[in-house]
């Protein structure tokens, strides 16, 4: 390859890479981070994003360069250079993606194991989903239509469904789990930010699916304890 071609390639690559990297960095991709689980999720997200930015830049630059460099007029009858393959190149583009996906797999596996771990003192909340409402029951028997959680303590949700499939999701927590009729499913969330977040049903569950929403309210531990105790007194 001539020197000029390499320079052109590098320039195209730099421009494409810069544009794609800007899209990755300057668009506010992820919602507010409000749980410890999200730290791992965001890490895998950005790891994957940078790998994808690299791969996309390479492929897009190759195509753009070829389109600019090798185009010909419609009445050109000549053929291109008969290159049938290149074993070295083929080994490289088999091996490199293999290594990259292995990296993503390992990172994902570690994060997944961590995000499933509720620690030794989780707050257990029984979640019941039905068309089209959520209900949360606490260990002391208190039931609530909104999910209240103490800050910094792992909450282990035990999900049940009365009728059809539903799915529990709080975008700011990054955790999601289907509620399945007939079995119990499980999800761990460790809130790290005070505030109110939407609880969204993400599994099509019928006519009211779009409005099957609730709230998750993260409280200071002391306030949460008072709320739970008051709730008991009210019963």
């Amino acid at each position, binding site marked *: 390859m001539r020197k000029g071609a390499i320079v052109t390639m590098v320039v195209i690559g730099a421009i494409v890479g810069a544009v794609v990297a800007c899209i990755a960095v300057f668009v506010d991709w992820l919602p507010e981070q409000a749980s410890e689980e999200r730290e791992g*999720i965001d890490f895998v997200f950005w790891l994957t994003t940078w790998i994808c930015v690299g791969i*996309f830049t390479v492929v897009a630059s190759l*195509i753009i360069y070829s389109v600019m460099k090798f185009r010909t007029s419609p009445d050109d009858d000549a*053929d291109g250079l008969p*290159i049938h*393959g290149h074993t070295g190149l083929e080994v490289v583009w088999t091996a490199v993606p293999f290594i990259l*996906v292995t990296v993503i797999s390992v990172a994902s596996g570690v994060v997944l194991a961590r995000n499933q771990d509720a620690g030794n003192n989780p707050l257990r909340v029984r979640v019941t989903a039905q068309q089209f409402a959520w209900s949360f029951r606490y260990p002391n028997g208190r039931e609530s239509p909104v999910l209240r959680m103490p800050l910094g303590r792992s909450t282990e949700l035990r*999900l049940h469904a009365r009728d059809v499939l539903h799915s529990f999701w709080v975008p700011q927590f*990054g955790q999601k789990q289907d509620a399945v009729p007939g079995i119990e499913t499980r999800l761990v969330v460790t809130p790290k930010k005070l505030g109110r977040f939407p609880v969204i049903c993400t599994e099509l569950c019928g006519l009211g699916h779009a409005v099957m929403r609730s709230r998750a309210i993260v409280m200071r531990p002391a306030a949460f304890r008072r709320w739970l105790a008051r709730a008991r007194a009210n019963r």
Partner: protein
Amino acid sequence: MTTTEQAHHTQAPPAVPPAGARRLIFGAGWIRAAWMSALFAGIGIGIVTGIRALAGWEPVWDWQPIMTVAFLTAAPIGYLVGIGCFDYWLYYISGRPTRAEDHSSHGAHSWRDYFRVNTDHKVIGVQYVTTTIIFMLAGGLLAMFFRAELARPGMQFIDPQTYNGLVSVHASLMIFLFIIPAFAGLANYVLPLMIGAPDMAFPRLNALSFWMLPVAGVIMLSSFVVPGGAFAAGWTNYAPLADVNPDGNIFFQMAVQWAGASSIATALNFLVTIITMRAPGMTFWRMPLLVWANFTTSLLVVVATPFIAGSQFFLLFDRVAGTDFFRPDGGGYVLGYQHIFWFYSHPAVYIMMLPGFGIVSEVIAVMSRKPIFGYRLMALSLMAILVLGFSVWAHHMFVSGMATWLRVPMMITTLLIAVPTGIKVFSWCATLWEGRLHFTTPMLWALGFVSMFVIGGLSGIYLGAVPIDIHVSDTYFVVAHIHYVLVGGSLFTIMAGIYYWFPKMTGRMYDERLGKLHFWTTFITFNLTFFPMHWIGVQGMPRRVSDYVPEFANWNFFISIASFALGASFVIFIYNMVVSWARGPIAEANPWRALTLEWQVSSPPPIFNFDEIPQVVGNPYEYGVPGARHAVLNGGGARTEELEEVRAH
């Protein structure tokens, strides 16, 4: 008329047709199809009510079994018998004289022949492609209806039942009636030509496969007129929502059976054709990549499609016959449905992708005037995708509540598929290198495909990584991903194929300027429609919702407007196809100067494809190799003189 054709006609004159009204009513055709559908529906009603009356089941007149048996099973069979799909076999069974070399229903002599049962793979190919385009337009219109609803938060035009119905039927039509059969149609036309065969191995089965397709499409669409509404559980039709859905759900369950049967029959036909009917010299390692792609796709179809048939039959029995396969109250296993469903529906993703890989390989090699880079690795990576494709189904179920340990192995196999897919993308790019690129319309679609498929493939990596998938599962991020792979991937390759083979199929050339205009408008509006969906999905918008929070109002408005423009861009396509087919300039036999066999015969090809059996002497993509030839034909071909020269050496 060629000599062979004449020979066949003199050998086997068509049977003396019964005269006049009798022929009109009892001869194969639309009138017989109409009354036989009604007759069979009546027989179906008789069977159901008869059995119920004898068994003493109340009520005797029960709509669900009547709908299933009479209208969705018996009536379509009546229509198939009436239209003439079974004529030959029924003659044979009943001992009436049949002719082994009966070609009376072979080839199209006027436009009317396209509306009859025809055993010519070229006619069937055109029938397939036009039918699937009609269903694509229908599916696209449904999408524009619900995009209109989504343009603003709140409910505007339609109620949630209609909304869910539109979403479900849109997906089902696009998957089962457009993408999968459109590929089958294109391959039906070109595959026998490419391997130097006179037709498919089982021409009558081929005709039957096609005629089952409109049945599936009409059933899907007519679910809107069922009392209670269309099937509205999404195209995945998850239990137990499917059980509490309106009766339109039965229409999905049965339409899938018809589309699936059609798909399986075609796949068997392709397999036998490829294995047994290759021209002399056409070894596996000399087959064009389109043939390789359809070989692997057909293996996928034959093994996987029975699983979706099973899953829908079980659901149907749960609803109509009172079984408990997936009903938790009766001890059924809800997640079992998802496992069986995805054991088909993940390989189905590759059924919708591999034939496109084949088309793009043809187009890029020809338009770059270069051999395909790494031909053998390209073929082997198809086989790798085939094998890996069966080991990844549960990646659709990372949040479903299945055994948690299953997630990591499924993630690893899922991400590994990126390796053979990457090989293909890099090889296409390398094929461009040092080529002489001709930016014809098919080439634009092929390159558009490569760039969009890279985006779709990379968003697939996010979805394969379990922690990210848990966050974005069932959101608009998934909607963006599937449209980048199924529109930017499958639809773009179908368009590349249609433009590429249009001169071969019709004998006329399409309008190149309109073709390019169609590409650019579709390419731009496609990206405007689907790229923002990545963002709103990650931010928190779930899929399949008829209403959403005001936070996403602006983007949804933007997406809706872009989607209308995307729909409008297909007006250019339809105009170009219709006008060019009727009045376009006559096409040469080989306008692209391609080496593969389908271009070595006239456009459109003679009725039995080749006047003499071609002799394959080399690889299919030897562009730029001095003196290299793929095949030697004796007569009729476009390169006869050149080939004469070669043979003289």
